[in-house]
């Protein structure tokens, strides 16, 4: 089966890369895995690409077919161990960042060869569990995180409500499924599930620019696990969903939110996988925001972002997408203290979360070890904020910042543009002043969790104290537990409106406790917001055969975000119950 698949994937460019390698070893030090594991020579890009080259030579090259041992040709792996080894190499030691490609004197595109190897393995069902689950979700539900349509629409409504609260009017509400709009905005499901504020910020920017835009109900996921799994068929299906939706709505262009692989998949590879020549105009939201400023459609105040900032180039946006200067130009317009990291642009190192690495928890220790190259780059800038235009990079960078204790945070350009946005508010004269209204509004804003009971579960005393303080300041009554067993007992006793659950705890951990809570009729309806310092466990908990948690936040937790999440989750649950 693998031979047949390989034959289908061969084209002149791929064959050129397969026959062009002279084993000179020049690609060696371009790879962050090699630099992080200098004694493990199997990390070298040419060795990784040779795994595919062996199969190719054995099946398609005359010398390889006649004298296989002479040129290192090899038959299709026969044992499960062989396949596992190949899986480990193709998925666990390469993020397909393409840095080695630019360092090859022969122009061998090793990243493409590695993706083909991933595709062959995926075809015979050999892939990391995370990749399998995510691919399945994308095939079946139309997005890689299994977000249900009602949850997606609900999140858009929630963000519209927040915008209305912030602006005092509903003119910035997110238009959904608007036919004939000029722009269709596509996002990463991570934004719906973990970071909906980016949707709100984008909506605010579109509104401020006076854009005629919409978000679709279907075909909104700009990500594409076909890029990571090597499955061109999945790649084509995902891309087509967006193109077809854009045609159905009759929009002028698709604007792709800040997602590196989403941009590359939708804008470039997708048209090839879907065999559609330029189906609709597409651009990254970075360019859209930059043009708004240049055209005077929005005004920004860089003093709103005074912290020292550096910029990390997403591999897919930069090396595979040609966008180096535009994000820097935008960043300089909306911030005060930009510091370049070195090397940068085409030679920047991978965040180590690329190529689907964030969904492969089995390789997390190795990934974090390989991240020391990136960590050193960031540390040298002295920046307090690392800006990037990719959601995978956000997760990858957050992980390594915590692991290497860099003491900085990660932001996207949409966060900074929204913060720097200058909104000229029209003067409003209330029709009739009612002192009581103001009081009620202030109380509601100050104590959005008033009357709610929240169970905080965390083994670390300082974290428990912090979460308790935040929830109590928001008006909630808080009860606490220090491990899984206590959490279950407290949940049964207190029937809280929400459980804030840590995952990594001694004794019964958060994952086990979560499953028990969900399976117990007494507690199954209690909404759970996971608050963890281990983002790599995300997939573990979502893989459990129970209803997934209602929220998921990574530590360190932003106070406002925590309260907003809690408020939204409880409100949403109440609306459903009603």
């Amino acid at each position, binding site marked *: 089966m693998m031979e047949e698949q390989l034959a289908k994937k*061969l*084209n*002149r*460019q*791929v*064959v*050129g*890369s397969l*026959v*062009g*390698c*002279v*084993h000179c*070893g*020049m*690609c*060696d*030090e*371009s790879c962050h895995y090699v630099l992080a594991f200098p004694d493990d*020579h199997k990390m*070298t890009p*040419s*060795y990784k690409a040779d795994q595919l080259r062996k199969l190719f030579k054995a099946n398609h090259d*005359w*010398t390889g077919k006649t004298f296989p041992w*002479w*040129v*290192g040709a090899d038959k299709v792996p026969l044992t499960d161990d062989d396949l596992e080894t190949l899986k480990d190499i193709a998925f666990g030691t390469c993020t397909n960042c393409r840095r080695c490609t*630019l*360092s*090859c*004197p*022969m*122009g*061998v*595109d090793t990243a493409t060869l590695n993706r083909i190897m991933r595709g062959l393995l995926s075809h015979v069902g050999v892939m990391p569990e995370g990749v399998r689950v995510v691919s399945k979700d994308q095939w079946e539900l139309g997005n890689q995180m299994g977000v249900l349509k009602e949850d997606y629409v609900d999140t858009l409504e929630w963000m519209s409500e927040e915008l209305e609260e912030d602006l005092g009017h509903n003119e910035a509400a997110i238009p959904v499924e608007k036919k004939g709009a000029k722009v269709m905005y596509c996002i990463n499901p991570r934004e719906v599930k973990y970071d909906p504020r980016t949707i709100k910020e984008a909506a605010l920017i579109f509104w401020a620019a006076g854009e005629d835009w919409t978000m679709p109900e279907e075909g909104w996921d700009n990500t594409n696990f076909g890029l990571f799994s090597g499955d061109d068929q999945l790649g084509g299906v995902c891309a087509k969903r967006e193109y077809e939706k854009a045609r159905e709505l009759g929009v002028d262009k698709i604007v792709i939110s800040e997602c590196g692989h989403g941009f590359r998949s939708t*804008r*470039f*590879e997708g*048209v*090839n996988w879907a*065999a559609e*020549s*330029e189906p609709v*105009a*597409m651009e990254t939201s970075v360019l859209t925001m930059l043009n708004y400023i240049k055209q005077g459609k929005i005004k920004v105040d860089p003093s709103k972002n005074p912290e020292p900032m550096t910029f990390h180039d997403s591999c897919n946006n930069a*090396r*595979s*997408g*040609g*966008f*180096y*200067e*535009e994000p820097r130009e935008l960043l300089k317009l909306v911030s005060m203290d930009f510091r370049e990291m*070195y*090397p*940068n*642009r*085409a*030679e920047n190192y991978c965040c180590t979360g690329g190529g689907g690495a964030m969904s492969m928890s089995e390789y997390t220790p190795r990934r974090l070890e390989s991240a020391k190259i990136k960590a050193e780059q960031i540390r040298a800038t002295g920046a307090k904020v690392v800006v990037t235009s990719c959601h995978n990079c956000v997760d990858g960078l957050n992980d390594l910042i915590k692991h290497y204790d860099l003491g900085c945070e990660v932001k996207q350009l949409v966060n900074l543009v929204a913060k720097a946005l200058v909104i000229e508010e029209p003067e409003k004269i209330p029709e009739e002043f009612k002192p009581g209204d103001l009081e009620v509004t202030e109380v509601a804003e100050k104590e959005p969790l008033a009357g709610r009971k929240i169970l905080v579960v965390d083994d670390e005393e300082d974290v428990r104290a912090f979460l308790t303080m935040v929830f109590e300041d928001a008006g909630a009554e808080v009860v606490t537990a220090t491990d899984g067993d206590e959490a279950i007992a407290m949940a049964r006793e207190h029937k809280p409106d929400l459980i804030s659950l840590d995952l990594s705890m001694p004794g019964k951990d958060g994952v086990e406790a979560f499953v028990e809570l969900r399976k117990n009729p007494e507690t199954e309806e209690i909404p759970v917001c996971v608050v963890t310092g281990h983002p790599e466990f995300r997939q573990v908990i979502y893989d459990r055969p129970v209803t997934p948690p209602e929220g998921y936040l990574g530590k360190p937790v932003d106070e406002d975000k925590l309260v907003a999440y809690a408020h939204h989750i409880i409100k949403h649950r109440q609306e459903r119950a009603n």
Partner: protein
Amino acid sequence: MPEVSPALHTAEVVHWIALVVMAIVYTLKIRWLLSFTLAKDRSAPGNPIQSDKKRGARYSFFNVAMPWSMESTRKPKGFIFYLSFVIFHLGVVAGITLAFVSTIAPDFLRNQAVGYPMLAFLIGALLVSIYRVFRRTLRPLMRLISTPDDYFSLVMLTIWFALGTCTQAYLMGIWGMTSEMLLVAYLYLTSFFLLYVPFSKISHYLYYPFTRIYIGRALGQRGSYPVVRG
């Protein structure tokens, strides 16, 4: 015209036959490569300001003459390797020139203005190839990625450079090299070389224009070639 010994004459004939065989195999190899579909990129140019397929292809093709274009050849260690690459390949050109010109116009190579640079190129390449043999056999990384063909090709070239150096010295009448058998042996080794190369990794130069132009066009279309760094 000086009289040619039967041994040399036979070596010359074998050499020319080997050349014809190599040309035929190379033609077949290029036909084989071209038999694969050329994948077309349907996407619109990536970055409106930088995207240019042809510019990317040109940049990529001439990359071999631009050591500053790649990190792997720009860093001090890599630059030294790049210099050794230049010396090695100049030696290859000198060796091929020697094989053909020695039978057609040997007096040209006896001219000191030509002969000594030829010697310098061949000796330089010989030293580099000896270094490369050690590099490939002693460095664990190189051993891991090397096939028998990699070792054999390199050793064969090392012997070829050594014999070429002696042959050039023979043609110039220096260093006590007086036996015509040096030239005969060199031509036979070159003949073997010509027959072996199309089936080995040495034929990489045949693919160079293809691989470089393809990657150059692909990344040029995206706007990421020529490489941008700050």
